Each structure stands twice: as structure tokens, then as C-alpha cells.
């Protein structure tokens, strides 16, 4: 089984904040990490590879330093990795990103594509399903369990808002995975050595036969108009007194606000 895992290097968003006074970003010391959901996508791919026979390729689109997350993927056991990097890719929204990744997937060849449910910087969850549309394959989002896999199809569980569904999907297909699916393995010593030595090919727009007007900013239908700090939370109050008194004040306040 040929599996492609799509991963992304993201800023650790828990460290990103806006300075409320200057309305600018406080970015000092914000580390770059692999998108947490993608670790689960990689784990799923590795488990499938071990259960069947196959090859796992990790891809990412980004600036040259995004290579770091590909090396991390190799250290976990991914067979090879490809970096899609080109100035012309810059400014891509989800549409252009999904187009670019799908062109690369087409060139690599696959039975299954696995993505994390969403990336934590944008939280859109759009790139996976959009790729499936570009590749004209079925997709299943929020996969929380993988039951059976054959060369033709797989049986998986999809987590919905009010239930889960057992689904049979024909291959080739794309799935996006939630954290519940598995526990990502730590890198092995051998993996770390492989990651150090690995030569990671870099593909540009021409390498994947991407049409110029469908990539990067030019290919992106959406634009960021502006960014601003979220409105500050209202008043905060620590309730005083004995537990009994604290609870009484709380209930009074909640009644006043129409919560009870």
C-alpha cells in the first residue's frame, strides 16, 4: 500500500498573542512545531504499513525550514519525504495549498492519503477534503478508528458531532484523523540517524506540473484583509467568603445573568 501523509510546520499557537496596547503580535520566542494532529496521521500510516506491506511518504508545502518536520517524520519511521518549496507557492490559502499538494500526490502515486484533522494555526480543516475533490477520490473526515484494510477498501469509524459512523470506503481515498485514533510513537534511535542522513528532495511548481494561476497568492480566492486582537473578556471577579457564601454569590450572579 502506498501511503502519503500530508504534514505542516506551524507556530506553536499557544505562544502567539497580540499586545493589546499596540495591536501587534508578540512573537518573540514562538517555536515552530509539527502540527499536533499530523503526528497521529503519521502514526496511522506507519501502523497500516506494518499491517500490510507498503511505503509511507511524507510531504509538506512550505519555506525551506519546513524541512525540519519532514526529518521529524522520518525519525518516526516514514520511508521518504518531499518538500514542496517555491517562492511562487507563497501566500497560498487552502484552495491553492490543496491544489499544490494534490499535484504532488498525483506525481508520487498513492492508494491512501492521510492528513491530520486540521492545522492548529488556521484551524480550517479544509485542505484534506479539498485535495480529495481535486484528485476525484472519496474522503472520510475525523477518522477515529481503522478496522479492516484490504487493497480495495477500508472499514473505518468517523466521529460526528452527535454519534460515530462505521464507514466502508473504496481506495484510493483520503482520510483526515483525530487524536483519538492512536498514540504517536516517539522517534527511534535508528529513525533519528536516518533523519539526519536523509536527503530530502525539493520540488517546485514546475516539478509537479502546477499551473501558475492556481498556486500561491495568485491561486488563492481568499485574502486576509486585516488582523486584530480578540475583544477582551469582560469583568473578572474572585468570589470571597466561606464555601457556602461563595456558592450563594455565584448563584445570585448566575440568576441575574439568566443562566438559571
Amino acid at each position, binding site marked *: 500500500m502506498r501511503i502519503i501523509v500530508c504534514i505542516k510546520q506551524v507556530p506553536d499557537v499557544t505562544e502567539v498573542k497580540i499586545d493589546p496596547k*499596540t495591536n501587534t503580535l508578540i512573537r518573540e520566542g514562538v517555536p515552530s512545531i509539527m502540527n499536533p494532529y499530523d503526528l497521529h496521521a503519521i502514526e496511522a500510516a506507519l501502523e497500516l504499513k506494518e499491517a500490510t506491506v507498503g511505503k509511507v511518504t511524507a510531504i509538506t508545502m512550505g519555506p525551506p525550514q519546513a524541512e525540519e518536520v519532514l526529518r521529524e517524520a522520518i525519525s518516526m519511521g516514514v520511508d521518504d519525504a518531499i518538500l514542496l518549496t517555491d517562492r511562487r507557492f507563497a501566500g497560498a490559502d487552502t484552495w491553492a495549498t490543496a491544489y499544490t499538494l494534490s499535484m504532488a500526490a498525483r506525481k508520487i502515486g498513492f492508494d491512501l492519503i492521510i492528513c491530520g484533522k486540521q492545522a492548529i494555526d488556521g484551524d480550517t480543516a479544509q485542505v484534506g477534503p479539498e485535495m480529495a475533490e481535486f484528485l476525484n477520490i472519496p474522503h472520510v473526515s475525523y477518522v477515529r478508528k481503522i478496522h479492516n484494510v484490504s487493497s480495495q477498501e477500508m472499514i473505518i469509524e468517523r466521529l460526528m458531532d452527535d454519534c460515530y459512523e462505521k464507514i466502508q470506503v473504496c481506495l484510493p481515498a483520503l482520510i483526515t484523523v483525530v487524536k483519538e485514533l492512536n498514540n504517536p510513537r516517539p522517534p527511534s534511535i535508528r529513525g533519528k540517524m536516518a533523519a539526519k542522513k536523509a536527503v530530502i528532495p525539493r520540488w517546485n511548481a514546475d516539478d509537479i506540473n502546477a499551473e501558475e494561476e492556481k498556486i500561491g497568492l495568485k491561486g488563492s480566492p481568499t485574502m486576509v484583509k486585516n488582523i486584530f486582537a480578540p475583544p477582551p473578556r469582560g469583568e*473578572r471577579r474572585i468570589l470571597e467568603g466561606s464555601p457556602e457564601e461563595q456558592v450563594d454569590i455565584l448563584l445570585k450572579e448566575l440568576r441575574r445573568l439568566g443562566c438559571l
Partner: protein
Amino acid sequence: MLIKINIEKCTGCATCVNVCPFGAIIIKEDKAFITESCTLCGACVESCSEGAIIDARDKEVEKPKDFKGVWIFAEQSQGKIASVAYELLGIGRKLADELKSELCAVLFGNSDEVQELIKWGADKVYYVNSPDYICLDDELYSKTLVKLVNDYKPEIMLAGATAIGRSFIPRVAAKLRVGLTADCTGLEIDKETGNLLQIRPAFGGNIMATIVSPNSRPQIATVRPRVMKRGEYNPERKGEIIEVEPLKPSGRIKILERVEDTSFCKVNLQDAKVIVSGGRGIGGPEGFKALWELANLLGGTVGASRAAVDEGWIPYAHQVGQTGKTVCPKLYIACGISGAVQHLVGMQSSDIIVAINKDPNAPIFNIATYGIVGDVKIILPLLIKKIQEGVSL
């Protein structure tokens, strides 16, 4: 490069360095310099008081014409129309009135509640009544919606940012080659351009962004549940229901079974008005009993921090936070949750936050509307008792 620095004008003040969300601007020899990390987001352009940043990105081309009307996708589960659909009708009505156009709803599957969509504000409902559409088939849903859009050309299309909406709407946008903005919490019409201003949180809710899709129609957005207000309900309201011919499923996915185990059907965190959430501080799985009791009293459901889920005290479906669900109930009661940023980004847009924690320095108190420094095991039973007494009075 489509965004450049005019070296002549640049004073090296570094304002743009701080504005750039991606750390892509540095100061080199007293002048700003744009590095490879630039994503062309344009955040820096307006920040420069000297006008030294040249924005050579594509300016607006002529907008596609003949697109009219605001559409909302009304999702259903087991025949029951989701409450987010009525919220979409609320905001959709406002936008449609401002644009002086009609408001239409699209309904797939089978439901007795079609008329409700009209009473809540829709002028027309496009109804695909077929058993193939009862559960989400992404390919079938997206193909059908693409066909409807091509036939009727709406200007704006809104769907819920729910499991269903966020899964199949991207396929629609990909196929139509139009812009899609995820999980919006605000929608307005730009008075100057007539574009839809789509406001959404990014970077885990630490930053808000306004997104536009200036050159493509329809403008598509998914909208976070429980943020928009419902419109006016008028049982006398009349509208048109247009039955649409169903398409044939591709057969590439088959839903074998739908499972609503009891721990699940109560968990619909995104729809809940009240969430009582537990963390490591509640001490163990038995600690959740009191949380359920309180949640039931308040007509809400139970959430959890990652710590409690990782301990195996409660299933993942309850997890709130970065790797769980993002929620915004009217009332969020955090019990024994210290408030790691990963948790806060998932619940900080709740209307009222109550925090109960032993540690007065717990970060959860920084965002709590009401904080109680105390032991959950003492406070919760008291709270439950007093509410029960209050109800019986």
C-alpha cells in the same frame, strides 16, 4: 516578490516587524527586509506610516456578475434540522435584507421540519428529499450543492462549522474554484465593495482575522454554531418549497452503521448552552458523577480537559481544547481545570466562565468571569444542593 520595501522611504522604525504574524520581516542595515517566510498576507502594508511597503498583489479584478441571493445549508440529523441552521437563517436574513436579495435554504435528506425553515426566515427552500442523503455522503452532498449553485448562482453561501459542514463544504469550494472561510464568528457586508467580510479566530483564538473573497462568487463561509442569533419566528410566514431531483451516489463510500452510544449522544458540546467541565483536579472518574449531576440540572453537558481524558477518566468525545472541541456555550463551569493555554483556546469565547480550583494562581482565573478558590469536592455538592432547593422553592 509581491510585497516589497521601498528602501528610500523606510526609516527602519520596525513597526512592520512587530505586525508581521509570521516573523518574516527583519531589520538589516537599518532598513526593513522581507525574508522567505513571507506568506504575502499583507498585514504589514497598512502598518507603515511612511508608505514604504509596496503592495503589488493582485488588485481586485472585475467581480463575477449575475450572482444574487444569500443561501444557507440547513443540515439535519435523523430528520431533525440542526439548531445551527436557524442561526444561519438569522444572520442570512440580515445579510439578504442589506443586499436587498432573497434568502434561500438548502435541505438534504428527509425531514418533517421543512416549513420551519420558512417560518424562521427563508424565502425559498431547495429540498432534496431522498434516503441517500440522510447521512453525510461527502461526494453526493458536494456534487448536489455544486449543481444547485451552478443552476441558481447565489452570491453568498453559509453552512454550519459542524462535522458535516466542515467536511463536505471544502469539496464544494474546491470544485467551484471559489473562496471558503472556516468557522466564522462574524459576518458583515463591506459598504464600499459589497464583499462579505468574514471574521474568524486564528492562531487558536489568540488573533482575529477578517477574510474576503473579492473576485469569486459565491462567497462561502462556515459559521461557528451558537454564535449567531436566530431571527424572528413567524408561524404565518409563507415561502416556496422547491423539490430538487436527487443525484446518484458514487457508491465509493457506504455508511454501514450509525452508533449513538449513551456517552455520545449527550456530548454534543458544540450545541450545548451549558458545559460543566472537569480536569485533573476532580480526582478521578468518580468525580465526573457530580459534574453530570450539575450539568443535568442546568440542562447542559459535560466536558473535560486533556489531562482528564489522558487519564482515561472520560472519553475523548468530551475533550475541550486545542486537540479536542472548540466550544462557546453561554455558561462554562471549569472544575479542577488549571487552564493550560491548550484548554483555554478551546473555550475562551464562552459567554460566562466560572472556575473552581484549589490553586489561586491557576491561569484559568485570568479568564474566569467568576472564580471560586476552593475544593471542587466541597463546592460542587453545595452548588447542586442549593440549585435543587432553589428549583423546589
